């Protein structure tokens, strides 16, 4: 019998779907395998704003300007950790 997904896994799934559909124009991609969205070139001038808007709407949190740094947003694990921290905080 399979285990229910952990909170982190659920966040990761939701994010991966969004990133694939919105930032990767629907191209099937191993989003989890991307070490850096910037290095992979999938963030354009508005990509990060769109990502932040999605996070705020989906997890009902506020992302401050100071939070908008690659350390928080540049890969799936970093995003998951960031969102969990926001929800806990």
């Amino acid at each position: 019998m399979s285990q229910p997904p952990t909170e982190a896994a659920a966040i990761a799934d939701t994010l991966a779907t969004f990133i694939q559909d919105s930032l990767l124009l629907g191209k099937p991609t191993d989003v989890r395998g991307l070490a850096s969205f910037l290095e992979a070139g999938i963030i354009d001038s508005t990509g990060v704003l769109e990502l932040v808007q999605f996070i705020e709407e989906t997890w009902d949190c506020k992302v401050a300007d100071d939070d908008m740094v690659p350390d928080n947003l540049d890969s799936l694990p970093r995003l998951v950790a960031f969102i969990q921290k926001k929800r806990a905080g």
Partner: protein
Amino acid sequence: MCGIAGLVDLRGRPAEPALARRMASTLWHRGPDAGGVFADGPCALSHRRLAIIDLSGGAQPMSVDDGALTVTFNGEIFNYLELKAELEREHGRVFATRSDTETLLHAYAVWGDDCVTRFNGQWAFAIWDRRRRRLFCARDRIGVRPFFHTVHDGRFLFGSEVKALFSVPGVPRAFDVLGLHEVLTYWCALAPRTAWQGMSELPPGHTLTVDGGDVVTRRYWQLDYQTRDPLAEQQAASELRALLVSSAQLRLRADVPVGAYVSGGLDSSVIAGVVKHHTQTPLKTFSVGFDDAELDESTWQAEVVRALGTDHASVMASGDLIGASFPEVAWHLETPVVRTAPAPLFVLAGLVRQRGLKVVLTGEGADEMLGGYDIFKEAKVRRFWAKQPHSRLRPLLLRRLYPYMKNLQAQPEAYRRAFFHVRPEDLDSPFFSHLPRWRLTQQLTALLADDVGAQLARHDPLEELRARLPDGYASWHPFAQAQYLESSILLPGYILSSQGDRMAMGRSVEGRYPFLDVRVMEWAGRLPATHKMKVLDEKHVLKRAAHDLVPPSVLARPKQPYRAPDAHSFFDPQTGKARHAWIDELTSERAVAAAGVFRPASATKLIEKARKGAISGVKENMALVVLISTQLVHHRFVADFPTAFPEEST
């Protein structure tokens, strides 16, 4: 300005004039005033005429020397009067007309293939040399006028537009995936490649000969950036002013009235100002506005018109109008595009024609020749930062880039830096200036159908381009390298074609470009970069040269590139509905699958997002436009290409 077409049977069979006539009939919009056909042995030439010089005597195809030489010619040789005088005086040539067409023929008779080096103008032509049974074709230096060709069923076929070649029975009509890859990198295919399998474009500055079954192309001119000794700024400004006055005067040569576009920016204002201050020509001007305040420049246009006192007309290109015009625009474009920007220029050309004019001067070319684009500024800032990568102050200059783009300005500082960050390996790239733009555009390949994407796996457009860079490129100043890339790729491949020739000629209007006079281009190539962009002041020398020709406010305003609404032209931002039924039909999953270019699921998601009014940013807007334009072009040229043309019998 006209449409040309023709063929040479490479096996020597007699050419069919009816076929040449059919090819030209697809180009009726380029020349509604008259048509003509010529045939001699294996060659047939055809022509559609837009009568501008020598209205009564310039009919084509035209012959001289008792029919030994016959030409079909699209364009203008602006210095034809000087050449005619020389040909008469020094070579004893006798002219029967006042046309530049006849001058072209006599020039070829005297100087042979090298005649093109004597021409100052914009042209694409083909001369049938009966004695040598040889076709000599040429295209102007920078690619103002188009020339496409192919070989099919033992025949060399050529025409001003690809549709002329497609009208020949049996010629296949299919996208070239490598050409599409280039569109999804550079915004256009790089000549000789096109978006179409088997169709070639004669590159700018090249001649082509068809001789004894062989088709040979040869370069006769290219951009050069060997700078000369330091030149005082005032001297440079004075030289540029004199060149522009002469260039504009040459481009006013016509037997019909000549108008001018006024965008509200510096370049077109300078041209209108030159005409106003240095000629007796009463000037009619034309402009296009947008209902999106971020894109609209009507206030600036009004200021220029007021200052110059021109007879002005304008048109509003609403999102709805842009969308409505796009099927017709696609017919003239003949290639997928990533921006809707051609469409408002089609609307504007319609206004020109409606007001009874068929020739306009524009400011195209100034940004490329004199260093106006933000991409040059961006490269300069990035290179400056890369010299001290840990500097906290240098990247602050990035805020000076693209001030007119709200989304970019709203970007978090850390991401702005990350986006423009110079990778160590990029610093030595010959494409340093253009890598951010090309990488961004290449992200659109994510939309491609899996089998199409797989075909591109081994195709690297940048590697192909690297092999074609001119001798000496590596020794040029980085600013000159950026100028070369812009002037040899986007200028002919998109600006002068998709936004230029195709849109104007689609409404039977000829554009003329004083900044692309050969003397201006060669002078600008030798001009030190510091005169073009002084620190971060773009087109610095032009502002000095034209300071008294345009309103001071226009001289001082920051550069705003011409842009048009993209997603909103196809989907109403209020209701989310497609503005026109054809948009839903052509972007349906079934239609996308049938065209076979894009992944249907990706296209569907993009369209769903558009319906929610959620398309944002440069990449998504480009994705939507390239999806819609590709589907339209496929529909018009592959799925539903006409079998007959109404003007075929005229």
